[in-house]
């Protein structure tokens, strides 16, 4: 192989790699994205009741959204962790909720214990079936939630 053929090959390989590097992402981009696993509102199984320690709050994900399970002697309540103040993700602090953004606090019943939030954390429709916790759509009937907050769940 002469130096000139070698260089031609080298340039060709670089060229093909560069073109492929552009075409591949573009083709992937054009392909419609797969449906998000667990569309919002779909019933999901978040695990066995026994996997949530009694009397404690445990963080889970419901259809890609942050939530917390409160297990009281097998009776399960599922709260959304989206703050009713401005939509931050609320953290679990012991047996209460605390928002890192503006300091809103909620009791383990979802009720506001400290502002600036004024509305309680909403709960998900949920039930236990054969020992598994099934979580359904959000229940926003508990308070007059603003439109942007409802939008977080649609």
């Amino acid at each position, binding site marked *: 192989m002469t130096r000139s053929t070698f260089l031609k090959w080298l340039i060709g390989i670089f060229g093909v790699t560069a073109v492929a590097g552009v075409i591949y*992402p*573009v083709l*992937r*981009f*054009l*392909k419609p*994205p797969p449906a*998000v696993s667990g569309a919002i509102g779909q019933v999901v199984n978040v695990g066995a009741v026994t996997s949530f320690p009694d009397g404690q709050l445990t963080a889970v994900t419901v259809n890609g959204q942050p939530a917390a399970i409160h297990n009281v002697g097998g009776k399960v309540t599922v709260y959304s962790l989206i703050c009713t103040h401005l939509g931050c993700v609320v953290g679990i602090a012991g047996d209460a909720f605390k928002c890192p953004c503006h300091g809103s606090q909620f009791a383990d019943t979802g009720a506001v214990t400290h502002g600036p939030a004024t509305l309680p954390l909403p709960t998900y429709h949920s039930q236990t079936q054969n020992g598994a916790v099934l979580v359904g759509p959000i229940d926003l009937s508990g308070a007059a939630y603003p439109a942007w907050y409802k939008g977080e769940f649609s």
Partner: protein
Amino acid sequence: MSANAGPLPQLPSDAKRRKPGLIGWVVNRLGMDDTMEDQYNRVVPAHASNYIYCFGGIALVLFVILAATGIMLAIYYQPTPDTAYQSVLNISTHVQFGWWIRSIHRWSAGGMVLLVFLHMLRVFFTGAYKKPRELNWVTGVFLLLITMGFGFTGYLLPWDQKAYWATKVGTDIAGSVPGLGHFLLISLRGGEQISAATLGRFFDLHVLVLPAIIVILLLGHFFMIRRHGISGRL
């Protein structure tokens, strides 16, 4: 001419100048041999072999990238108040390589404004706007304004808080023009307030009106640089 001069050099016959291959075929059909030859044989003056002479070309490359990525983003973007933000979020989080395409578009946009401005500074400080190139300077000024128009209209499209308030302030400034102000303001906003009409108008400007104008002006800009050649050294 002396009588001893040898035979005249043989001009290449048409047959000899015929180029092979597909491009050659097209060039031959269109009788563009001379035109192409002229383009190939352009010599870049030595003083122009400097990075500051690249700014305009880089701005053009960025424009091409912006056009390509913009066309792709328009596939998933939805210009209505209810869906605009969600569709942008969808591009960035669900569409495969969507974050990549959108980031390229965004950074190229900033880069193009910067490079167009640097290009203007280069032209100014090397005196390249002087006779006979005044008209090219004038098209360049419009190209700068259109580039900024792209930035302004594109900024609203994600329809988030930043976009909303930037557009509020920007259109308020247009509204402060004496006499014409209120007309400009309602023309841009499509009403007294920023609404779905504003988003529709800005989207139309960003993807249809401004691209059409910029392409026409760019063609004029490049025609003139070819006609005049690169300006002389300082």
